[in-house]
């Protein structure tokens, strides 16, 4: 504590340089935070996907339907615990930019398969009884200022017409990464209103299994059950399904790692150079410190601590700004439901900050430690 005055005085010795160095860290860590947010936005669904859930889609493509009659056949496969299904609706609320996912869902089994979505029981019962009812995720309700009881008009796209819904409930995710942007309405209503050629079909099945270890066997069993039929299936774990979805956007992870790597390497060079200059400027002063009794180890730690402190201040600032950036929610208005800076990313950011701070300070610190007083004083 008694050395804080010395450390503080040195930090603010060159205010502009201090601010610029802190700024370098802040910008780099802000970018790191935003990249982490983007990574989560694309892969969040993969990470939280249930290990005990399978997704069954049409082997040709997810946009091709599957017969509703498959439900009973899938249920009979050993190891299948629950099953539910849904259709993609793809309607437009007010403006095409107001995207949010809308599902016609199976009221009977949905909550058994997706227990992570929390809905007040009274709201759920009202919804079950209301054929025109709908339930919205908390994020979507907040985004449009909806409250329970509101009438929500959604314009159908491939089905046409305006579909009016009564907002009977609002669900919340029980985990931070749970998607709260979905909009659900009853599959039965969907079935009633679609043209004859669409009837009796679902978009996909979600299957809950007794034991995650059985997932592969059950997946194969489901696909084998419908092999050589007009509607062959492709079954995968929910995690693999989500990962496949993300892959459509390219190798996001690699892109983020590459950008992050370049940024931090540049930051290392910049701060390393700054610290080297800072130490060189203070050669005489460090020599005096040693002359009056400060040890080599103290001087080493002193320079290193200064470097780490600059890094931590800048890093915390950058991560703080990234956190603030995410507080406003998904800026794409629904395309990125998992839009938040996870705690793990903050810790990783602080770890990287410390590593860069230490790496940029270690060589100047060793130089300061090895400094011979007589040589340094001769240079002054």
């Amino acid at each position, binding site marked *: 504590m008694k050395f804080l005055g*010395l450390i503080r*005085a040195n930090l603010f010795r060159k205010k502009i340089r201090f601010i610029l160095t802190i700024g370098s860290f802040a910008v780099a860590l802000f970018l790191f935070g935003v990249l982490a947010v983007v990574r989560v936005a694309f892969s969040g669904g993969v990470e939280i996907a249930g290990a005990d859930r399978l997704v069954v889609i049409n082997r040709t493509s997810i946009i091709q339907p599957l017969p509703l009659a498959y439900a009973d056949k899938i249920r009979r496969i050993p190891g299948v615990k629950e099953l539910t299904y849904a259709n993609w609706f793809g309607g437009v609320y007010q403006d095409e930019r107001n995207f949010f996912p809308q599902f016609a869902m199976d009221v009977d089994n949905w909550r058994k398969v997706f227990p992570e979505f929390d809905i007040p029981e009274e709201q759920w019962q009202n919804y079950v009884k209301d054929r025109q009812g709908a339930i919205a995720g908390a994020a979507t309700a907040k985004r449009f200022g909806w409250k329970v009881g509101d009438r929500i008009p959604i314009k159908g796209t491939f089905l046409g017409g305006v579909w009016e819904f009564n907002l009977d409930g609002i669900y919340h995710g029980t985990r931070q990464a749970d998607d709260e942007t979905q909009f659900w309405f009853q599959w039965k209503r969907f079935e009633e209103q679609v043209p004859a050629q669409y009837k009796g079909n679902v978009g996909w099945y979600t299957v809950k299994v007794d034991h995650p270890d059985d997932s592969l066997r059950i997946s194969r069993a489901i696909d084998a059950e419908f092999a050589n039929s007009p509607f062959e299936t492709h079954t995968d774990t929910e995690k693999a399904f989500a990962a496949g979805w993300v892959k459509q956007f390219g190798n996001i992870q690699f892109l983020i790692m590459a950008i992050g790597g370049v940024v931090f390497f540049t930051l290392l060079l910049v701060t390393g150079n700054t610290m080297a200059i800072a130490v060189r400027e203070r050669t005489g*002063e460090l020599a*005096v410190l040693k002359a009056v*009794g400060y040890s*080599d180890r103290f001087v080493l730690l002193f320079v290193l601590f200064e470097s780490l402190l600059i890094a931590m201040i800048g890093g915390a600032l950058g991560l703080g700004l990234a956190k603030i950036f995410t507080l406003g929610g998904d800026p794409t208005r629904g395309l990125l439901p998992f839009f938040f800076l996870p705690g793990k990313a903050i810790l990783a950011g602080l770890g990287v900050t410390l590593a860069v701070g230490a790496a940029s300070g270690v060589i100047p610190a060793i130089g300061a430690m090895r400094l011979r007083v*007589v040589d340094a*004083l001769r240079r002054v």
Partner: protein
Amino acid sequence: MVRVDGSGSSNSLISARGLSKTYSRGGEQIQVLQALNLDVDAGEFIAFMGPSGSGKTTLLNLLGGLDVPSAGSITVAGDEITHMSRSRLTQWRARHVGFVFQMYNLIPVLTAFQNVELPLLLTSLSKAQRRQHVETALGVVGLSDRIHHYPRQLSGGQEQRVTIARAIVSDPTFLLCDEPTGDLDRKSADEIMELILRLVKEYKKTVLMVTHDPVVAARADVTLHLEKGVLVEADRLQTVSSGGAR
């Protein structure tokens, strides 16, 4: 009493025996000090003079534990310092040596108070005790009213006073002054010399000083001349008690 012939008593505060220092420069060996002997008693004020390159500063650095000799030994207050490790030597310096440099070497971002406090931060003194010591030291050098000034807000003479305060604040065994007036005008130089003399007379400090200035050197008890790495002359001045010029 200072001696350069190696005949000093075991009671000498500082005793150097056969002290040599050789530098290697461009493959050439340069002998700066050659088998030098020196004995200094406590409370003495010694001035070292000599042409540039004669080894004055090298001798001061060796006596202050800032450098190690190529041969010979140095004993200070019973401690043989020539074979101490770097870390031990650092601790020894903190306890025994006060340095005053020609260029002051104050830390510009610290106030006079903070500069003087630096050596005390290494001790176990409380904050209040440190404050008391620093205020006393700054009082001794006549800068009680400048404690919160930064070096840039002080004159050269005042800066050197702060350096002296930093040197004496931990009450070291002896002071090493390397051209303490070299960067000052005559008036400031006289004031600094008055201060050093006060430290010797009133506070019984032992002072070893390097200078180029014969006027400054004349204020010391003894002036030793270094030429080609050898102490060739000892010129003892009269003391005040015997009617001398101190």
